[in-house]
């Protein structure tokens, strides 16, 4: 069902490159204000999906509307509402940072010079350096500045932190959190560095082989899968604990680590009492959730 609040609507979208099915019959709604983590292994179809949304690739089949317009026919009005930071970090290397900012800003009537000045200061960007001589981290900062300088409503980040070292990545995420807190933007972050992504997202889209395996809020995903540790109060635990619906169950002496799906905590607590065990719940990190869903 088409959602009135959706800024991106995909219906039965398929895209093929030769023998590779990059997108397979995808239905998707992206709503205003969501921070979406687009997850999947290499070749899952993440970048293709993002490029179909912004009209860089045309769907072979189905329809994709972005801001109510066919994605293949986005005009200045729609493009002026979309910021895109791409995986390849493709910029005009021969320009200085200052020249590049001025060049890109010429294309936008809504360019916010105050915002630009603030980010240059906050990002610690050197304006006189040539873009081609910047480190990957600096380059990514410039790419982000160019993507947000005109105040886009939809910000698309395709592997934004893949070129960064752990320290630069952490700083980048802080920055992203700052952007999210300051403005009510819709952000789609594609990444396979899941430990980073989980700090900022509120919605997850998991892809595999061109199909969407999961499209749900991060909270509901966390509620669906529960991991807990059982500690026996009277010696060894039996090898079979009787959690029939367990995804995994590792028993070692008097302790067991169990992962279950769609089971209320109350039921698990009752079961632990029956086994004369203490129970301790642990939230599953996104990486674990992803592994469970993909496997």
């Amino acid at each position: 069902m088409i959602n009135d609040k959706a800024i991106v609507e995909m219906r039965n979208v398929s895209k093929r490159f030769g023998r590779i099915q990059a997108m397979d019959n995808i239905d998707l709604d992206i709503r205003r204000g969501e921070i979406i983590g687009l997850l999947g292994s290499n070749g899952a179809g993440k970048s293709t999906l993002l490029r179909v949304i912004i009209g860089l690739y045309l769907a072979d089949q189905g329809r994709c509307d972005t801001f109510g317009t066919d994605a293949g026919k986005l005009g200045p009005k729609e493009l002026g509402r979309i910021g895109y930071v791409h995986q390849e970090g493709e910029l005009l290397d021969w320009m200085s940072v200052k020249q590049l900012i001025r060049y890109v800003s010429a294309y936008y009537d809504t360019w916010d010079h105050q915002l630009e000045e603030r980010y240059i200061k906050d990002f610690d960007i050197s304006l006189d350096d040539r873009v081609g001589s910047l480190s990957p981290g600096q380059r990514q900062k410039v790419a982000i500045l160019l993507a947000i300088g005109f105040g886009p409503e939809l910000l698309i980040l395709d592997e934004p932190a893949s070129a960064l070292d752990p320290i630069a990545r952490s700083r980048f995420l802080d920055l992203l959190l700052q952007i999210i807190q300051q403005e009510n933007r819709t952000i789609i972050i594609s990444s396979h560095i899941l430990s980073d992504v989980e700090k900022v997202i509120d919605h997850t889209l998991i892809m595999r082989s061109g199909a969407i395996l999961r499209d749900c809020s991060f909270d509901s995903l966390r509620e669906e899968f529960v991991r807990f540790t059982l500690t026996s109060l009277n010696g060894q635990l039996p090898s079979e604990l009787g959690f029939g619906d367990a995804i995994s169950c590792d028993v070692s002496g008097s302790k067991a680590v169990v992962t279950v799906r769609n089971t209320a905590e109350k039921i698990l607590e009752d079961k632990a009492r029956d086994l004369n065990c203490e129970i301790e719940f642990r939230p599953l990190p996104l990486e674990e959730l992803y592994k469970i869903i993909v496997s």
Partner: protein
Amino acid sequence: MNILRANLKHLYQRRTYLFLTIFFGAIAFLVLEEIIEAASGNKQGGFVAPVLWMFLVGSVVVSLPLEILTKPYFLLFARTQEYTETVCVLHWTGIVISLVA
């Protein structure tokens, strides 16, 4: 800043092109002299040099927009269509003028 002006700035922003711009600019007056002489009938075949000069200058000017227009990133700029249309008009105008000349 006007989009066309922003794009013409590449001619001095890129170091190689800065050199070429200075070089072609420096010989522009010689080319102009050739045109004036040929037009006044003092010199036969005088249009060869200006045509060659125009071809080289045109190649230099065109190569940068082409390089930028082939980057997918550029296609997402809000008013990119406006610039592409301007470039097409300028290129065709140049081709027509060259053919007439």
